[in-house]
């Protein structure tokens, strides 16, 4: 079973992100479960949503305590919430930021995990460019597809199309594709850097 935890703030589409991920996994023939943490939801307050993938029925219904994947939609949370709590040693981390993890101040934390599985993507900026609004969730899913290969960009695009329609769907899909490219390039560069 793969467990994903998404952190963000109310109003950033964290819950929708988890739902779209579950739809993407379903599209790829897997069982998936998505649900929000049930804290006091209001715009700006920290929000957590969870998603699980598996190849058989998912019976577990506890919050994701030991995530294999961490997606952080809002880097300001890093000072407020222990987003890394429980992250598996082989875990993936994708942070919504135009700055690298080292630049954000996560060098120490990153050292505990696998370097090639941690990265950032400027999802808010990409979203602003395509949607005109700073809603980074779809873009982040595109970035996640590139980072992990655990969902395909095609499945992510399909999921976006299920949740949204018309122009909004199209621009979200474009944002996801751009974020996918960004992360793919980041990973290539960092692989070359390591090889050197």
């Amino acid at each position, binding site marked *: 079973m793969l467990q994903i*935890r998404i952190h963000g703030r109310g109003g950033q589409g964290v819950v929708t992100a*988890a*739902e779209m991920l*579950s*739809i993407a*996994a*379903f*599209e790829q023939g897997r*069982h*998936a*479960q*998505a*649900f*929000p*943490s*049930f*804290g*006091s939801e209001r715009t700006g*307050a*920290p929000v*957590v949503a969870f998603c699980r993938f598996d190849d058989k*029925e*998912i*019976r*577990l*219904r*506890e*919050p994701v*305590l030991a995530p294999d994947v961490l997606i952080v939609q809002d880097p300001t949370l890093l000072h*407020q*919430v*222990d987003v890394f*709590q*429980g992250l598996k040693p082989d875990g993936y981390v994708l942070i919504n930021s135009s700055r690298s993890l080292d630049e954000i101040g996560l060098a120490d934390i990153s050292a505990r995990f696998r370097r090639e599985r941690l990265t950032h993507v400027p999802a808010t900026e990409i979203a602003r460019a395509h949607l005109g609004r700073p809603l980074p969730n779809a873009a982040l899913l595109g970035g996640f597809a590139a980072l992990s290969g655990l969902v395909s960009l095609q499945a992510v695009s399909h999921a976006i199309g299920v949740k949204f329609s018309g122009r909004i769907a199209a621009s979200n899909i474009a944002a996801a594709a751009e974020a996918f490219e960004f992360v793919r390039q980041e990973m290539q560069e960092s692989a070359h850097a390591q090889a050197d």
Partner: protein
Amino acid sequence: MLKQIEGSRAVAEAVALCRPEVICAYPISPQTHIVEGLGELVKAGTLTPCEFINVESEFAAMSVAIGASAAGGRTYTATASQGLLFMCEAVYNASGLGLPIVMTVANRAIGAPINIWNDHSDSMSQRDSGWLQLFAESNQEALDMHIQAFKLGEELSMPVMVCMDGFILTHAYERADMPTQAEVDAFLPPYEPRQVLDPAEPVSIGAMVGPEAFMEVRYLAHAKQTMALERIPQIADEFAQRFGRRSGGLLSSYRCEDAETIVVALGSVVGTLQDAVDEMRDGGRKVGVLGIRSFRPFPLAAVRAALQGAQRVVVLEKSFSVGLGGVLSTDVRLALSGLLLHGYTVVAGLGGRAITKASLIRTLSQAMADQLPPLTFMDLDWGIVNRQLEREKATRRSGPIAENLLRDVGVVASKVH
């Protein structure tokens, strides 16, 4: 057809397939997505003919349902928590009159303190009302149970509550296999009322019944629920034949056959328990899970048969009778009268507190070592409880309890669970 959808949406679509004629509802978290979904289907003309009535309170919702059902309409409503309490008088009225209304209860805690998250206190408050109460363990089961509920309720002329955990099921996206209209039509015939308000054959419904006959009328309600004990498994079989999967029935039994310890529970926590049991079994421990799907009527004989081979029974429940202890465990204990085995009540998950696999394994291990008290509150923070008790000893004007505790707990949103 397989879909990846929200639990509430799955229920809305399943209810719509049952061709309800009158839907009346008042919004309350966490049921809102169900009635919104149905409202949309009616307004768009997808679900027709159907009257969708936005009522002004839950009391009105159940009352409108009573009128609609008495006039021969297949009727549906949904509520939770405070809303269920607000309609309580009408809940008893509906079952007393024998009207086969189907209602979803999106299980949520009852205040004070106000709490929108999941536990079973709401349905439990109505367990004596005469409504049948079915508990769904997953969203697939929730949607299936609604289809079965209409059939069951209409056959017996009794109302049915389908209980599903608020947020945990209602707001979770899961895979659901949605039947076709043709499949549901073949399973669920049109509603044929036993009593109906019809100018062609006038009857008076709801007259006063004195001491001469009241006991008999009430006994008949009990007799119908006793009949339901037979019908529920039969309907589950008929459902399996028609739709190709098992849902509903009286109980769900997982690895109980040779279990020394069996955990009994209701609703979605059964899934987490099954995962916990698998892990414990991997460690060589003989443990199983009994999920109760029909809570009213309570399947005393079936529960006894399922548990009598075990040495130990742990009832894990999201409900609590203040001043006594467990609610579900009291019913389970009745089923086990005369049998010699260790019994434990574990109250967990009240007000939406997460029930983790790790806590379950720890608690069950303690039970298996017989190191558990008869009544435990799982993951209770004794620190803040004792601090409050000290506060109350120290001063009379100790302030509102909830606020004191919240201050002790600290900033809630920074925690993962």
